[in-house]
């Protein structure tokens, strides 16, 4: 395996730090992308609907906050993941345990990043409908808010799984 040039060789020879760093970058970057996407979908509808029904603005900020929470999940997980990065001597960098740690952080980052991307979109679209329907009939607000809470919970699933997964990331002991 070490002599041929193949994908499996590439995946074992690339430094686990590379994967770990990409994972951290994805976790925050893609989460923020999802949150921003959701906020503009909600925000543009909210501004338009508030012209005829100004009473909706403060209530519907909740939708924007839900989207914002998605970005905060990304920040939290990125911070947790980067605390998992430990320096190991270069002789041990390609050991299976190092590789496992690198991939665990990478996977955690991807999980939380994409879970938050779709969660942000989902909350954003519901938030936009929420603003429009609240402007027409204020009794709909609470009902749609419940849907929005369920949408927002999707991102939390990603966070939970990625935190559990990142606990797998242990690097080889320095003494070895």
């Amino acid at each position, binding site marked *: 395996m070490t002599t041929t040039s193949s994908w499996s060789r590439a995946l074992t020879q690339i430094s686990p730090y590379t994967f770990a760093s990409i994972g951290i970058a994805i976790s925050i970057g893609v989460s923020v992308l999802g949150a921003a996407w959701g906020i503009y*979908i909600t925000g543009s*509808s909210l501004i*338009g609907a508030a*012209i005829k029904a100004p009473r909706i603005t403060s209530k519907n900020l909740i939708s924007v906050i839900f989207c914002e929470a998605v970005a905060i999940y990304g920040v939290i997980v990125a911070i947790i993941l980067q605390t998992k990065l430990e320096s190991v001597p270069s002789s041990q960098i390609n050991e299976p345990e190092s590789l496992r740690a690198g991939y665990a952080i990478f996977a955690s980052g991807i999980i939380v990043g994409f879970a938050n991307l779709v969660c942000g979109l989902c909350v954003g679209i519901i938030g*936009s409908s929420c603003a*429009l329907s609240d402007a027409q009939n204020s009794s709909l607000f609470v009902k749609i808010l419940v849907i929005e809470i369920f949408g927002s919970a999707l991102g939390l699933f990603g966070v939970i799984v990625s935190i559990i997964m990142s606990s797998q990331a242990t690097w080889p002991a320095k003494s070895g």
Partner: protein
Amino acid sequence: MYGFEAMTFNIHGGYLEAIVRGYRSGLLTAADYNNLCQCETLEDIKMHLSATEYGPYLQNEPSPLHTTTIVEKCTLKLVDEYKHMLCQATEPLSTFLEYITYGHMIDNVVLIVTGTLHERDVQELLEKCHPLGMFESIASLAVAQNMRELYRLVLVDTPLAPYFSECITSEDLDDMNIEIMRNTLYKAYLEDFYQFCKKLGGATAEIMCDLLAFEADRRAVNITINSIGTELTRDDRRKLYSNFGLLYPYGHEELAVCEDFDQVRAVLEKYPPYQSIFSKLSYGESQMLDKAFYEEEVKRLCLAFEQQFHYAVFFAYIRLREQEIRNLMWVSECVAQNQKSRVHDSVVFIF
């Protein structure tokens, strides 16, 4: 990309869509209409309307009110809203909004040409034109003697130019010709609008194509009923039907040979969506057909608001507002002429 408009629609359309939904909530409700129907004088109508969104427009009107003033002011409100939306719109929504006005442009052209033919004053005619269908050179329409001149002098610079390709003749204008011109233009316009909406894709295409198909079918039925007993031949009649819609193509073949109202009815009753319209009418009764079609249209337009992230709400809103203005015109005419018993004949409740 059907189903994914939700992700990108709001970049350009979100703000305006929310605004148009806000406008929609200002439409008169059944309670408003009930109040309006109770009115004894036009002053009462003004008072009732001052509590609605029409208030600021009617506020400073001096006291002997006329029906035309009320209608004019209400139309002014629609035009103001339309202009506001057009200012805010980006492509392709701005093109879509412009398409909505072409129908009025056609009506205005026909109005001016017919008026000139009957030697009416151009200024007087211009006042009667729908403000949404105005264009710069509209006054010079009066000088044209035949279709070719009409096209060459005036219409070549307007968006209507492409629709003229089928009706350029050197014949002198007369009432029959003008009516055929109106319907040919309208046919070309509807087909063009239909293609445009189809190109937009997604929910816009789905809903707009449905609404336009209904419009096309309604026109086909009206053309048939109006041409019964005239010298229009079957083939000519067939040529005026738009090439889409629920009735296309088999229904058109059958409509083309209809010779009285009951035959039209028999053709349309084969189509389930239109069956319900005709079930409200008794046999041989064609006067109430317009109202039945308007009611069906309003129902369909209201349904357009049930979906989000598409352009049909703009079309639906402008159409509903126009229906509301027609209602107000009818109510105020009835009140002005002391015909209150007929007030319900032509009012179409929107909600």
